[in-house]
């Protein structure tokens, strides 16, 4: 029996990385997942900016998103690390504080919405490992990628999960796909997004460029992440540094895209050929079975 989830896409995936959304919608039936769109969902809102600028605004908007999923009667599946932090933290804050929940609901009721805390917030990694199971994922694999060398970018928020379990889930999935992970020595280092709130140049130089240099030295075929924020920052960094004459051409992939390829979807079907960073070499390598 397939499991149903309220799908929370966030901002970056639908607007900037539709490849991940297309991959997700393609792989869902194969992995026995039923995704129900949360019609009218908005920005989670982004924890680094909105939560800091105004805690109430952050709580009200995220509670609205939680209420949308609750009206569908399904747990939320989140495909973005930042959205996971916002929705998970705001849910925890609300269910552990009934007066706060009542106050937030008083703001939601005029909009015809209410959140009672009946649903859970699940990260995509959690859904794959805990609900779908790595065995089911393995039986569906069609495309061997054993020679593909990938650099992993976990994203800060994964370390915030209980006992850092999301980090090990990420590794487990990569291992199941049979992809070769290259240790490039800066896996834990931040992509530079929070630092860009202070200075984009500093973030680019000390974080993004450092990471990209390390990946380049390790001669990776692509970078894989579950964080659309990291994806966006490192993609933009490559495009901006190109103007200064520094070329990397490290293709960026969301883990969902890598899963879709492993399940046998053609790179063109999921738009791998339409990335802003060239993926020709990667596509050729995938065509040769990762060799």
């Amino acid at each position, binding site marked *: 029996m397939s499991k149903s989830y309220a799908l929370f*896409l966030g*901002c*970056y995936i*639908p*607007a*900037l990385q*539709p*490849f991940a*959304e*297309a991959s997700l*919608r393609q792989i869902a039936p194969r992995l026995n997942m039923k995704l129900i*769109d*949360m*019609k*009218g*969902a*908005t*920005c989670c*809102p*982004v924890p680094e*900016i*909105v939560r*800091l*600028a*105004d805690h*109430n*605004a952050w709580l*009200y*908007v995220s509670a*609205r998103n939680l209420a949308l999923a609750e009206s569908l009667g399904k747990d939320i599946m989140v495909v973005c690390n930042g959205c996971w932090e916002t929705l998970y933290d705001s849910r925890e804050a609300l269910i552990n504080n009934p007066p706060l929940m009542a106050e937030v609901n008083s*703001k*939601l009721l*005029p*909009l015809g919405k209410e959140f009672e805390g009946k649903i859970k917030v699940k990260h995509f990694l959690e859904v794959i490992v805990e609900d779908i199971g790595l065995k089911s994922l393995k039986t569906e694999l069609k495309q061997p990628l054993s020679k593909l060398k990938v650099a992993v970018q976990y994203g800060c928020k994964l370390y915030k999960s209980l006992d850092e379990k999301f980090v090990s889930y990420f590794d487990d999935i990569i291992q199941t796909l049979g992809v070769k992970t290259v240790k490039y020595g800066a896996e834990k280092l931040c992509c530079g997004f929070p630092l*860009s*709130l*202070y200075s984009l140049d500093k973030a680019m130089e000390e974080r993004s460029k450092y990471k990209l240099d390390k990946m380049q030295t390790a001669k990776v075929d692509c970078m894989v992440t579950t964080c659309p924020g990291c994806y966006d920052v490192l993609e933009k960094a490559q495009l901006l540094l190109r103007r200064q004459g520094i070329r990397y051409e490290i293709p960026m992939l969301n883990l969902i895209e890598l899963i879709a390829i492993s399940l046998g979807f053609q790179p063109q*079907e*999921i*738009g791998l050929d*339409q990335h802003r960073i060239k993926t020709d070499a990667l596509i050729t390598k995938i065509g040769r079975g990762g060799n």
Partner: protein
Amino acid sequence: MSDEQLYPWRKKVKTLPPTFKNPIANIIHLGHIPKLVTTREKIRETLGINRKPPTAYGIESAKVEVQELIKRTELYDKATWNPTKEQTERESD
């Protein structure tokens, strides 16, 4: 000690760091941070997914709801505070 205690007569200026302004303005006006540009809409179409996702990008009422919620907080004033506008209003009084 807070600024209000230190300078009781000083008018509280509601402002945000410059790097926060655009993302917050976009959340208020679009319901999301990045704009969904036409080229991306076309890519979405070629990938077989809806041109506009079923979020605030495609649903006008969602934006209005987010605006309603943010208007009930101090963030709305902070994000929409315009020093030049206030100056002109003061001069015209």
